[in-house]
């Protein structure tokens, strides 16, 4: 990879090849005019976005633009917040997410979520993975242990923890805990993974490991990742969307392929943000 010559004084940017290389772009999640209201305030307003299947889409923008709220609305985690109201439409593989009759538990099995601060349950490593599987119907012991092993191998934790599966998950390091949380989401075989700044609470070494893991998910899962770290977004994203606060609420400024957002943006605000001149 040759460094770009356009910004000689800053760190070398790697050129973005024409991505995605995974598939023919096919929208998996379609969001139409989505707005979120907390009581009187609006977290974000009138967001229309299509997320393509099997690709990694990065949501970027400064803090407070509603990126996390947007992510939480996709698996209806916003239902947990009293006074929260969503308007608009979200279609996930044809399923109307916001319809009252939609089975939220079924939805959340298809859409997994990773939080900024790793939150394994105060149980053993094995139980952390086994419990959600049991709750979703997998009871057979052998299949449980093989699913758990596969999940831990997928996140690169198997060799590190295979001898202490019954020890407390909270005794793991931050990076290991986050990988455990990813494994916990992956063993349920979701279609979509929502990640809210998954590396921001980790040290640089663990952050790199988790990032490599995320890149490895491309193709098998549709990944939506909120990140403050523009360099990270450039490294891993196929598509990107910029959020900004305008008129007192978060708004989607521009969305498109990573190459477009980071190199040939249409909006001046986008260009200003990605070059570090604003935000």
């Amino acid at each position: 990879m040759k460094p770009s010559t356009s910004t000689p004084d800053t760190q070398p940017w790697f050129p973005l090849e024409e991505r995605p290389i995974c598939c023919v772009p096919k929208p998996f999640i379609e969001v139409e005019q989505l707005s979120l209201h907390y009581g009187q305030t609006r977290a974000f307003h009138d967001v229309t976005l299509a997320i393509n299947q099997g690709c990694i889409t990065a949501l970027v923008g400064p803090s407070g633009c509603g990126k996390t709220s947007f992510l939480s609305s996709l698996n209806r985690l916003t239902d947990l917040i009293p006074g929260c109201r969503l308007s608009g439409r979200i279609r996930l593989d044809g399923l109307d997410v916001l319809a009252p009759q939609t089975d939220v538990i079924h939805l959340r099995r298809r859409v997994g979520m990773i939080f900024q601060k790793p939150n394994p349950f105060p149980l053993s490593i094995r139980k952390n993975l086994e419990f959600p599987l049991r709750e979703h119907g997998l009871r057979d012991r052998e299949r449980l242990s093989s699913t758990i092993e596969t999940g831990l191998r997928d996140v690169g934790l198997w060799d590190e923890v295979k001898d202490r599966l019954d020890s407390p998950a909270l005794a793991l390091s931050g990076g290991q805990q986050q990988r455990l949380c990813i494994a916990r989401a992956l063993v349920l075989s979701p279609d979509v993974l929502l990640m809210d700044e998954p590396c921001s609470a980790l040290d640089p070494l663990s952050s790199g490991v988790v990032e490599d893991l995320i890149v490895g998910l491309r193709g098998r899962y549709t990944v939506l990742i909120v990140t403050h770290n523009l360099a990270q977004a450039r490294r891993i994203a196929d598509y990107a969307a910029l959020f900004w606060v305008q008129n007192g609420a978060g708004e989607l400024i521009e969305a498109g392929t990573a190459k477009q957002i980071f190199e040939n943006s249409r909006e001046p605000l986008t260009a200003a943000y990605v070059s570090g001149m604003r935000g």
Partner: protein
Amino acid sequence: MVNTLERHRDGREWLASTLVWIAAALVTATFCWLLGDILWHGLSHISWTFLTAPPQNAGREGGIGPILVSTALILGVCLGVSVPIGVGTAILLAEFTTDANLFGRLTRRSLDVLSGVPSIVLGLFGNAFFCKTLGLGFSILSGGLTLACMVLPVLIRSTEEGFRAVPTGYRLSAAALGLSRTTTLVHLLLPAAVPGLLVGLVLGVGRAMAETAALIFTSGYVDRMPESLLDSGRALSLHIFDLSMNVPGGDANAYASALVLVVLLFAINGTASWLAGHWLHRRIVTI
């Protein structure tokens, strides 16, 4: 397969939900039954005369005037002794000892054990120590001192919390200004920790007023108006006990006395709650 799974899961959820609601309903019903009963039978006998007149005919008639006075005196002795000792101990534990300090740890352990001592055992101790050994006999003083022992752990814990809630910045700035520890304590920390102290005080009063077993053998049974602290006096809780167990036909006045005691305690506990929520919260926010 998905359908049976969902039905299974829904069935378990429904069962859990039903059990939880039944538990809540049972608790609520018991409470209403109990309080309703007391209110129903007691309200008709409450009057100003009842609250001020002396008991007559072994308490079947008349009122609870002297009893209220005795109760107040016992409380007064209890607080008068436990507040200085309690606040002093709390200050020492919060401000002058570290976690490793042996004296601090021993004191704390000892207070923990004290808070677990059954009240009747405290009554035994009070009887042996205050009434017999110190020669105070059955008196308000003995009763108050015994109750002070009971109330100390609660008071100390709450006051300590009050001190711990004061931000470290206060102490650091005072030290940087060259103020003595005493000045810092008296002028800065004590006023800021007053909410915790008050909460502890009120809780202590509540505990003391509810107490019966510790008083039976220390403050005595006499239901006349006490003339001095060395006189025997009957506390309100004891009066209810006596009327219901030893005086046939005393139920009516027992109900009324119980209502008075319950109302007083609700007021006291309500004040403690309000203080803890309102004042402590405000203190922390405004700093």
